[in-house]
C-alpha cells in the first residue's frame, strides 16, 4: 500500500489543480450537455426528454446538418495542411542567421494578433469585394477575379486564406522546435555533403516530429471548431447559400438564435465524436512517426 502511494502520489499531487478544475467546473457542464442532447430544451422552460429524436432528425431529416459537415470537412482538409506547410516554411526561413529576425517574427505574427475582431471582418470584406484589392491585383495579370464573397463556390476559400494567414501560433511552436535541434547535426551532415533537401528530410523533419504532431492535432481540433472567423465574415449566418455554414456556427444558431439548445447539444456531441476519432487516429499513427527524446533508452 505504501509502495502504491509512493508510486502514485506525486503524479496525483501535480494533477490536483486540474482535477479540481475538471470535477468542479468542467465535468458538470459536459454531462449536462450530454443529457440535454436527448431533450427538447428551449432555454426558457425545463428540458423535455425526447430520447433519440434529436439524432434521428439530424441524421435523416436535416439537410443543413450534412451541409455543415461538408463545409467543415472541406475547411479542415484545406486549411490544416496549408497552415502547417506555410508556418513551417516561414519558421525555417526565420530560424537562424538572418538579420532583423525579431522584426520579421513580430510582423508575421501580426495577423494572428488581430484575431477575430470586427475590424478583420470589415477588412476581409473590403479585400475580397468585387472591386477590392484581391481582384484589382488579379486584374493586373488580366485575370477576371470571381465574386469571392457571394459565390458559394469561392466563399470558403476566403476563409481558408484567412486561416492560413493567421499562421502565427503554429509558426511560433515550429520556431521553438527548430531551435531545439542541435546545430552539430547539421554540421555533421554538411561534412557528409548533404544537400538542403536531404538535411530537411533526414534531420529537420524527424526531430521536429513531436512539434509537428502537436501542431497537427491542435490545428485540426481548432479547424473543426472554427467559429469566430465564419461568424464575423458571414454576419453570423453562413451565407451565401450555407457555403460558410461551419458546424459550430450552425450549432450556435440552433442554440442561441432558434432556442433549440437540446438539438444544439446533440450536434455538439456528434462533433466531439468526430474530433475524437480523428485525434485518436493521429495519436495511433504517432507511434510510427513521432519519437520523443524522453522515451529513448
Amino acid at each position, binding site marked *: 500500500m505504501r509502495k502504491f502511494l509512493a508510486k502514485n502520489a506525486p503524479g496525483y499531487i501535480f494533477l490536483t489543480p486540474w482535477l479540481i478544475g475538471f470535477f468542479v467546473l468542467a465535468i458538470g457542464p459536459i454531462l449536462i450537455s450530454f443529457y440535454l442532447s436527448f431533450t427538447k430544451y428551449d432555454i426558457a422552460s425545463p428540458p423535455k426528454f425526447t430520447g433519440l429524436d434529436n439524432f434521428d432528425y439530424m441524421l435523416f431529416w436535416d439537410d443543413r446538418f450534412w451541409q455543415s459537415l461538408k463545409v467543415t470537412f472541406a475547411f479542415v482538409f484545406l486549411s490544416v495542411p496549408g497552415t502547417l506547410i506555410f508556418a513551417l516554411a516561414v519558421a525555417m*526561413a526565420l530560424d537562424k542567421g538572418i538579420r532583423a529576425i525579431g522584426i520579421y517574427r513580430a510582423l508575421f505574427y501580426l495577423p494572428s*494578433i488581430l484575431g477575430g475582431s470586427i475590424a478583420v471582418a470589415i477588412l476581409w470584406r473590403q479585400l475580397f469585394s468585387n472591386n477590392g484589392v484581391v481582384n484589382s491585383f488579379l486584374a493586373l495579370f488580366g485575370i477576371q477575379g470571381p465574386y469571392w464573397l457571394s459565390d458559394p463556390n469561392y466563399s470558403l476559400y476566403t476563409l481558408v486564406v484567412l486561416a492560413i494567414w493567421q499562421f502565427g501560433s503554429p509558426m511560433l511552436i515550429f520556431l521553438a522546435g527548430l531551435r531545439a535541434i542541435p546545430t552539430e547535426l547539421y554540421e555533421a551532415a554538411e561534412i557528409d555533403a548533404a544537400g538542403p533537401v536531404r538535411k530537411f528530410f533526414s534531420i529537420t523533419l524527424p526531430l521536429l516530429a513531436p512539434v509537428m504532431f502537436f501542431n497537427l492535432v491542435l490545428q485540426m481540433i481548432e479547424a473543426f471548431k472554427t467559429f469566430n472567423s465564419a461568424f464575423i465574415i458571414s454576419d453570423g449566418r453562413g451565407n451565401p447559400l450555407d457555403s460558410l455554414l461551419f458546424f459550430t456556427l450552425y450549432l450556435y444558431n440552433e*442554440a442561441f438564435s432558434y432556442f433549440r439548445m437540446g438539438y444544439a447539444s446533440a450536434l455538439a456531441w456528434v462533433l466531439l465524436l468526430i474530433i475524437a476519432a480523428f485525434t485518436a487516429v493521429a495519436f495511433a499513427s504517432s507511434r510510427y512517426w513521432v519519437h520523443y527524446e524522453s522515451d529513448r533508452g
Partner: protein
Amino acid sequence: MADALPLQNPNATTAEIAQSLRDIRERKKRRANLLRHLFLIICSFVMVYPLLWLLASSLKPDAEIFGNLSLWPTNFDWANYSEGWNALVVSFTQFFWNSTLITVLAVIGNVISASFTAYAFARLEFAGKNFWFALMMMTLMIPYHIVLIPQYILFLKMGWVDTYLPLIVPRFLATDAFFIFLMVQFFRQLPRELDEAAMIDGCSPFKIYWAIILPLSVPAMATAAIFSFIGIWQDFLPPLVYLNDVKDYTVPLALRMFSSQDSVSLYGPMFAMSVLSIIPIFFFFVVFQRLIVQGIAMSGLK
C-alpha cells in the same frame, strides 16, 4: 572561365582548395540569404497590410472608410483617437485597466497550473494516467458554446456572475487543455537522463519540477504565456456573459459597442481603439518571444 576552379586544377594546393570551397559556400549562402530576404519581405507586406489598413482607417472620418477603398486617407485625422477614448459612457482608461488585470492574473494562472499538470502527464508515472489524459483531451474538443449555459448557471449559483472570478479562477485550475498539451509535448522532449540523475541524487519530483524542468522549459513557458496573453486579451464571449456592468467591461467588449445597426455608429473611433488595443499584445509578444530564443541558449541544452 579564365581562373579555372582550384578544384579542377591538379596543381592547386590544399589551402587553395579549402579557400575555394569556402568561397563557393559563401556565395551559395549569400544567394540563399538574398532569396530568403526576398521571400520574407514579400510575405511581410501581405502580413502588414491589415495593420496599415487599420491604421489608415483609424485616421479617416467615418464617411470615408466604406465608400473609398484607397489605403491613403485624404487628410490625417487624429481626432478619432481622442474621440474614441471617451466615446463610450466609460473611458478606455477603465477598459484597459480591466483587461490588463484580468489578463495578467489569468496568464499567470494558466502558465503555473498548466505546467503543473503537464509535468504530471509528461514525466511522472501513476495509475490511470492515460485515462485522465484522454479526458483532458476531450475537454479540448467540446465546443465552448454548448457548455456556456450550464457553466453560467454554475457560476450564478456560486454567486460569481458580475465578478471577474469566472474569468480568472478557472485559469488557476488548468481548465484550458490547450496549454497542458502544449507543455506536455515540450516536456517530453527533455532527456530522461536528467530526471534519473536527479532522482539518484535524492531529488523529489517537486525539486525536479522546480530546479530542472522549469528552467529548461523557459521557451515553452514563454510560448504558453504569449498564446494565453493573446487569447485572454481578445476573448469576448466569457466577459460578455459574466460581466453586466459597463464599468467592468474589457477592451474587446467595449470595441463591440461602437457599431450599431439601428442608429449612428462610430467606426473611425472604433478603429482607433482597435489599433491601441493591439499595442499591449504586440509589446508582450516582442518581450516574450525573446525568451523563446534565449531560453534555449541559456539552458545550454544541446
